[in-house]
């Protein structure tokens, strides 16, 4: 590495003195490059595809919970943005506001210049639950959704075939959802979402219910598809490594009230390997920084424990975190659950 390069350059053989100098240089290079790998995101001049302006949302129930407060975010075309945060930080609320399922009590959300009012196929939402229609086969699920868009039969069948192949479910077109494994169901759900060709794809911890190995496969799949199609994606997760593997941009959020802490750009080349040393280091950095931020924001006694608990929910090494910790700490209600009563 730098040692050999140095030796080549200076033309001098490796000696202990040069070795220590090279070691210092190497560390410096590493520090610099590490800084360059995770940088604050700089606003682009180009108009944003998704513009979130001063969005706030309060859940009014027995207690009022401020899910989001004055959130501003611009997502550009072709970006994969990961909303990262512990349970109850409002990331799902923000995602659902983008989808139109939740109407924010304050502020605007616009996609392609048009204000978002209600859910629609242009801003497709994918859940942790695959939400496939259980009485339809994989192919029928996709065709049914496409027909709703007004495409003719032949085009629907063609697209279904294409996307089933893309998610590697060939041979399972005629299977019913209950005959598939969890990972396969999510792949089918992904195929259905992608075949609709939405302007924006919104994903709410879609791989949260899968085992670690399947999740890794899904990450690879998603990365490959994204590299080919360059869709605008907003992905919600509590897993730091997942965010770093998938995202061009990682937007770290904190709760109570829900707000954006940092907006970071990830400059690792693709496809990314979750075991990449640099990635692991970045993940550790983020976790440490979060821990400090949480501890600072609650200086009262016992807050240190809470902060640690919240930081622990940010999982950097597989599914060790529990989402219940957030609920116990009085986090924000999940919008999917909050909507059960509203005739959803």
């Amino acid at each position, binding site marked *: 590495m730098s040692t050999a390069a140095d030796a080549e350059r200076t033309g001098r053989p490796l000696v202990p003195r040069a070795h220590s100098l090279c070691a210092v240089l190497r560390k410096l290079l590493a520090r610099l490059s590490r800084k360059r790998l995770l940088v604050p995101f700089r606003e682009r001049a180009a108009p944003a595809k998704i513009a979130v302006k001063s969005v706030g949302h309060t859940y009014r129930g027995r207690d009022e919970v401020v899910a989001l407060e004055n959130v501003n975010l611009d997502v550009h075309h072709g970006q994969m943005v990961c909303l990262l945060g512990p349970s109850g930080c409002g990331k799902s609320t923000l995602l659902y506001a983008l*989808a139109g*399922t939740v109407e924010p009590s304050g502020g605007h959300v616009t996609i392609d210049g048009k204000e978002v009012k*209600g*859910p*629609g*196929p242009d*801003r*497709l*939402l994918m*859940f942790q*639950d695959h*939400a496939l*229609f*259980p*009485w339809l086969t994989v192919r029928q699920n996709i065709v*049914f*959704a496409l*027909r*709703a*868009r007004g495409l003719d039969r032949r085009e629907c069948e063609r697209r279904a075939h294409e996307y089933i192949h893309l998610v590697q479910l060939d041979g399972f077109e005629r299977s*019913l*959802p*209950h*005959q598939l494994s969890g990972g396969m169901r999510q792949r089918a759900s992904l195929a*259905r979402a992608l075949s*609709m060709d939405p302007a924006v794809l919104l994903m709410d911890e879609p791989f949260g219910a899968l085992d670690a190995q399947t999740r890794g496969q899904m990450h690879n799949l998603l990365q490959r598809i994204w590299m080919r199609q360059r869709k605008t994606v907003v992905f919600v997760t509590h897993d730091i490594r997942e965010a770093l593997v998938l995202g061009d941009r990682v937007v770290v959020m904190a709760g109570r009230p829900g707000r954006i802490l940092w907006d970071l750009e990830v400059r690792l080349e693709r496809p990314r390997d979750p075991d990449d040393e640099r990635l692991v280091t970045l993940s550790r950095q983020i976790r440490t920084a979060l821990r400090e931020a949480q501890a600072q924001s609650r200086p009262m006694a016992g807050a240190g424990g809470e902060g640690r608990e919240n930081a622990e929910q940010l999982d950097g090494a597989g599914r060790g975190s529990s989402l219940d910790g957030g609920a116990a700490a009085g986090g924000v209600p999940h919008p*999917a659950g909050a*909507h*059960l009563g509203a*005739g*959803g």
Partner: protein
Amino acid sequence: MLRGFLHLAEDGRLLKAVARSLARLLQGYGISVLIGVPLGIATARLPLLRLTVKPIVMGLQSLPSICWLPLAILWFGLSESAILFVVVMGSLLSIAISTEDGVSSIQPQLLQVSGTLGIRGLRFYGGVLVPAALPGIVTGLKLGWSFAWRALMAGELLFVSGGLGQLLVTARELLDVAQVMAVMAAIVAIGVAMDRILFQAVEVRVRRRWGLEAP
């Protein structure tokens, strides 16, 4: 009993009676389904109906269907419509309640995903809501059929005008125990055939496809 059976079967009376009863059943049941399923769906989807109609329906459910007969005769006179009314009231409520139950227990995610995929209107009701609620609806249809059959028999007994009920009454008047039991056997046989063979099969098929039961 076998003698009585043959006696009846010989002059085609049994067949005619069965045909008559079944015709009434199908008519009444058909009406119940046509009213009950939409009523159940509407009650599940519209909060206003859920508050007002549902308690009424649930209350009336506990009324044995035969209690509708006096009212039916007063309203419709001594006619077919009276029996039909009794059959309809007997099964309508259970169909509506089961349907409402089926619709209410649809996974919220399915409804959310329909919104996000842009599936609305008729496509939503026909393509998502009804299929999703189908296991519950089929249960309702099965129950409704049982109730309709019982209501019909009760009606035919009290207001005699053809059909198996009349056969039963005639046999009683003739003090022919064998015939009475033969008719009873016929009634049971039809009930079982419909229940087990027709509805059970449909219910199991639906549940299997929906993934609610192991194949």
